[in-house]
């Protein structure tokens, strides 16, 4: 290391994020795997998602948007409960009658169904359970959104997925921009004497907001294009590589279909197809010039979270495979109390490992970002 070249930068984690981006991806997978039919277990997952979001969120506007997910999820719970509670076609399940709704026949062009009838506790609770599962999923995604460094993730998208990356970037910058713009437009409308009393008064906002957002998106796409985003090498991909790129996902989809029909060979096809597609993407990307300014350094805490997430992922898969009873819960035929299995609960607690590490680490270092400029070797 006795060159005159300046040193490359590496940080303990990329801008703002507290853990390696790959670790967060793994955590997301574990979080999704942890969602079950058991409301008690789901509640546990939700609490931990909130904990992680609060402890590890980044400083970006998106990092502060977790509350939005919380509220969106709550809205979905309400909708799902109402929809679940209303009997369709006059058929009600369960025996605990709550009240009876007047029957309503939908017009033929809406299917001619009968809505309403006997509303039972079982149905309402069933809807609520479904809503809770959705909310849990949204919170896990919301937490991931708040803690991950989006640009770090973008760097990881394969070059051949150029359009996907472009769309993702635009979407990511779109949301904070829209929030800022919303305020500006709202101000502008009030300046023209527009009074906001109900949601209906917000309608004039939508046109300039969407039009402005669209213009901005086009400008951003233009700027990214001009700065070489999605550059590919001079060589064109060979035909067999292209064939692989199409063939891989096809086999994957076929495998998924087979696994649905309980054919165990399906899983083999899923794994094989996935590997083929990933390989094709990798080879295609290998020929394109691209470098990284910041190396995300893998630290011990990253290993801990990765292992915890992997353990959770494997554990949940195993529990599913052996159809462990604690994961299931249904309100039919009659409402019972859900069973809480302490072993499964303990397994789920692994989800909050990043939050615990973060809270513990903060006490030690008095700094959340722990950005270090240190030297690494000359490897490129």
């Amino acid at each position: 290391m006795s060159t005159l070249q300046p040193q490359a930068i590496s940080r303990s984690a990329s801008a703002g994020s507290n853990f390696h981006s790959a670790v967060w991806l793994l955590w997301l997978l574990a979080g999704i795997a942890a969602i079950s039919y058991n409301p008690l277990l789901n509640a546990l997952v939700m609490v931990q998602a909130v904990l992680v979001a609060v402890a590890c969120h980044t400083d970006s506007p998106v990092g502060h948007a977790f509350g939005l997910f919380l509220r969106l999820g709550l809205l979905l719970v309400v909708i799902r409960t109402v929809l679940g509670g209303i009997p369709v076609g006059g058929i009600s399940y369960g025996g605990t009658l709550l009240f009876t709704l007047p029957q309503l026949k939908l017009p033929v062009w809406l299917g001619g169904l009968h809505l309403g009838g006997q509303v039972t506790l079982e149905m309402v609770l069933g809807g609520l359970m479904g809503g809770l599962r959705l909310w849990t999923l949204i919170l896990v995604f919301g937490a991931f959104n708040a803690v991950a460094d989006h640009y770090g993730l973008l760097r990881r998208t394969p070059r051949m997925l150029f359009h996907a990356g472009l769309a993702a970037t635009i979407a990511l910058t779109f949301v904070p921009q829209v929030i800022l713009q919303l305020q500006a437009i709202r101000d502008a409308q009030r300046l023209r004497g527009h009074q906001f009393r109900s949601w209906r008064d917000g309608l004039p906002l939508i046109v300039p907001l969407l039009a402005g957002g669209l213009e901005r998106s086009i400008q951003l796409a233009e700027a990214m294009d001009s700065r070489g985003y999605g550059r590919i090498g001079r060589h064109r991909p060979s035909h067999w590589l292209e064939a692989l790129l199409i063939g891989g996902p096809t086999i994957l989809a076929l495998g998924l279909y087979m696994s649905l029909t309980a054919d165990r060979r399906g899983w083999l096809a899923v794994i094989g197809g996935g590997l083929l597609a990933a390989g094709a993407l990798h080879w295609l990307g290998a020929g394109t010039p691209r470098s990284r300014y910041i190396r995300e350094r893998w630290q011990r805490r990253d290993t801990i979270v990765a292992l915890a997430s992997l353990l959770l992922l494997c554990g949940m898969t195993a529990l599913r495979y052996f159809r462990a009873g604690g994961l299931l819960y249904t309100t039919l035929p009659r409402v019972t109390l859900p069973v809480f299995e302490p072993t499964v609960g303990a397994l789920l607690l692994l989800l909050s490992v990043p939050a615990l590490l973060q809270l513990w680490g903060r006490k030690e270092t008095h700094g959340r970002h722990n950005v270090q400029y240190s030297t690494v070797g000359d490897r490129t």
Partner: protein
Amino acid sequence: MIEFVHVSYTYANAKQPALVDLSLRIDEGDFVLVMGASGSGKSTFLRCINGLVPHFYGGQWAGQVCVAGRDTRRNDPRQLADVVGFVFQDPEAQMVVEVVEDELVFGMENLGISPQIMRRRVEEVLDQLEIAHLRRRRVTTLSGGERQRVAIAAVLAMQPKVLVLDEPTSQLDPHTAEEVLTALQKLNADLGLTIVLSEHRLERVVQYADHIISFERGPNGPPSVTIGPPRTILAHSSLAPPLVHLGRALGWAPLPLTIKEGRRQVVAQSLDDVRPADAPPATSALPAGWRQRQPNQHTPPAPVLQVDSLHVRRSNHAILHNVTLDLHSGEIVAIMGRNGAGKTTLLRTIMGLEPPSQGRIMYQGQNIAALPVEQRAKQIGYVPQDPRSLLFQETVVAELRWTLRQQRSAAATPEVEEDRVRRALEMFQLQHVATAHPRDLSGGEQQRVALASILVAEPAILLLDEPTRGLDYEHKTLLQALLNRLKDAGRSIALVTHDVELAAACADRIVLLGNGEVVVTGPPRELLNSSLIFSSQIGKLFRHQPWLTVDEALAGLGQQSTVVEEQPSDQKAPQPTAKP
């Protein structure tokens, strides 16, 4: 370096071609200024250089553009990214990443530059654009000027051979603009970087340019394009900075492009002599027929709007500190100061969009602290920086009607309203676009629609935030005339602007804000003449005369007959006499 060969281009779904049979060549190391009225095809031309036209926009293309030997038809913008760097007009819309340092490396990573070289280049551009202190900041927290410098740095870091900039200084205060332009000029001189730049405020750039490409809009056909040295082009073009206008009117040869060159003429003809004996203070030295620019003597003593020791704090940080400002009827006040001095906040606080922490705002002697924005809007019209945020109806007429409907007063009958709409359209020369969609209009037209949509309600006071941003000279002159007419009709106008020429041309009083405080208030003649940065070109040229605009200088020189009549040409004739 850049070669256009018989290029013709029509945008998809456009009726008229944007470029017709354009052939020209830009040599390596040239600093080229692209000028022309808005909508004359400047932006299209610039986008041809890196292949955004036609690759990004589609449309019909004929001809060939070669950049550093590469044909843009076969190379799309991504492939040309290592040769051409492009800086867009709106710095907010070109930021891809959240943190400044990551933004700087985004392009380099795409080019596959090794981390060691990236590291070095980041340090270099941070220093070149003087933004080293911003490296860890989030892009959303930066001011407009800072963002534009980051955008330029991010492109420079890729070390392109050609740098294309689309109105890079339109949002910057005079000082920051000069900094950015000086940085560009240095890159051009030291590194031989080819620079192609479009700009409306020619007075800022003309002095740096080796060549000018001028887009003159035909009556209704495609623009005619000429390229040549600045002096040749400016001798005939309809757009020219004030200094050149004066030079042309007085028949100066060679045509002065910089204040220094102009002063040489002034000194040679001793036009700026101080004559303490017969030259009493500025105002009384004004020649006869001089446009009355001082606040009207008949103005009643009570101001229409009074801002009384206003304080605004935001998260423990003083934005405005003890600001006091009076606005009389029939008066134009220009509020100036550097980026982030609190100018916009002052206007927003007057409107009630931001709460003051202390102080009073009085409208005709009444405290309006309790009035909500919608109520204040009936008396005080405010046009924010981005006029587009005001517009959302399908047609221009609908915009005007909507404002009236929101502020409907009992007395207004439909006939009265229609009459108001018609008068507003007339006043702002919008009859021909009355049924057009506001978003399809050019920048200058959108600005006028926004103004009309506020003024149709006939507020007594008008607050304007950067009204000349992105306007060409033609539209600026139009705006000036409009402001003067409103003022003559007894309205009071306060405008926030970086545009010294605008302030010089129409303000009665200038308020200079610095760091949230009023630094100084006074008539433009005193303020703009003695300032180094906030001074008009004519003001800089004649340091000892009270003139700020071309008209004033010409009128003033008409008085000093002996000197000017020695000139061979007719001083008032706009005939250019400069040698090509």
